């Protein structure tokens, strides 16, 4: 006699008829992890170096005026926070991917792509800001030239 099973059985757990992750893909993941770790480490050094330069060139952000000093620090934190979070996200992605490959941890594999998504979101925002900043200079110059031409004539 067939056993009667509830219809929603297996809905909370991964279905057993899912395709397996091939050994080839696990090999790719394993080879990717050291590169991601390396990029995260070097990005951290790069950001620290840039922040150090910013601090040095702005006189360690210590001016006599309290509002000015606070403004510097808020600007600095506002600039540093996304960079630090980007580096952390990349590091977290590498750690979770390593956990997934070494322990064959399905949950870690699923969670690994969340920090990578956060990394891409911040990267997208920073890229758009960079493009706007790069394009703003020539655009303003062009507009200035166009506005100045009739006066020169």
């Amino acid at each position, binding site marked *: 006699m067939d056993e009667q099973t509830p219809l929603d059985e297996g809905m909370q757990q991964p279905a057993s008829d899912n395709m*397996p992750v091939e*050994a080839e*893909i696990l090999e*790719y993941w394993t080879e*990717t992890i050291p590169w991601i770790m390396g990029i995260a480490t070097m990005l951290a050094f790069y950001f620290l170096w840039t922040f150090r330069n910013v601090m040095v060139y702005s006189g360690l952000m210590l001016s006599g005026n309290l509002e000015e000093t606070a403004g510097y620090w808020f600007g600095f934190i506002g600039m540093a926070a996304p960079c630090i979070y980007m580096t952390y996200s990349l590091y977290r992605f590498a750690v979770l991917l390593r956990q997934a490959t070494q322990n064959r941890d399905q949950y870690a594999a*699923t969670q690994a792509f969340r920090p990578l998504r956060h990394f891409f979101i911040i990267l997208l925002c920073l890229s758009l800001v960079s493009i706007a900043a790069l394009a703003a200079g020539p655009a303003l110059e062009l507009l200035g030239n166009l506005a100045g031409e009739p006066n020169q004539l």
Partner: protein
Amino acid sequence: MDHTDAETPYPEEHSERAGTGLEWSDALRYSIRRCARVGEWAILAIIVASVVVTLSTLYNFYVWLDDYSGEFYLLEGDNKQRMWGFITSLTAVGLSLRASWQLRNAMRYLLWGADDYEDSETLAAGFYDLRDGMRWYGYWSIFLLACYTLEAFVF
């Protein structure tokens, strides 16, 4: 005990399933799909930014050379720094573009592969390109860090 063909898996198939222990669950596919969708746009923005930086660098260098008067000597004034900046900027952008192109392919394959429940070859291609893209970004970051270190000690 009678084993029919339907009950007995092929040896290769059996060993593959037993070897990995991970599976393409719906949650994993969903996670990859969400990541790849944002990743594709982010990489596209990086490619556009790289092109803008290249054009800006070339334009600035052209303007500088155009305004330059007299004989050009590399060690005169800040010529050395300018030439160094020009060459390293273009090399860094080139490496970044190479990596971005590979990652763009990776994101597209991952996006397509996450939707395909029958075949994981596309996902494999995506992760292959992801590995290569990260490798190129690794070269890029090594180059950038080496340049910064060299600038700190030499210039």
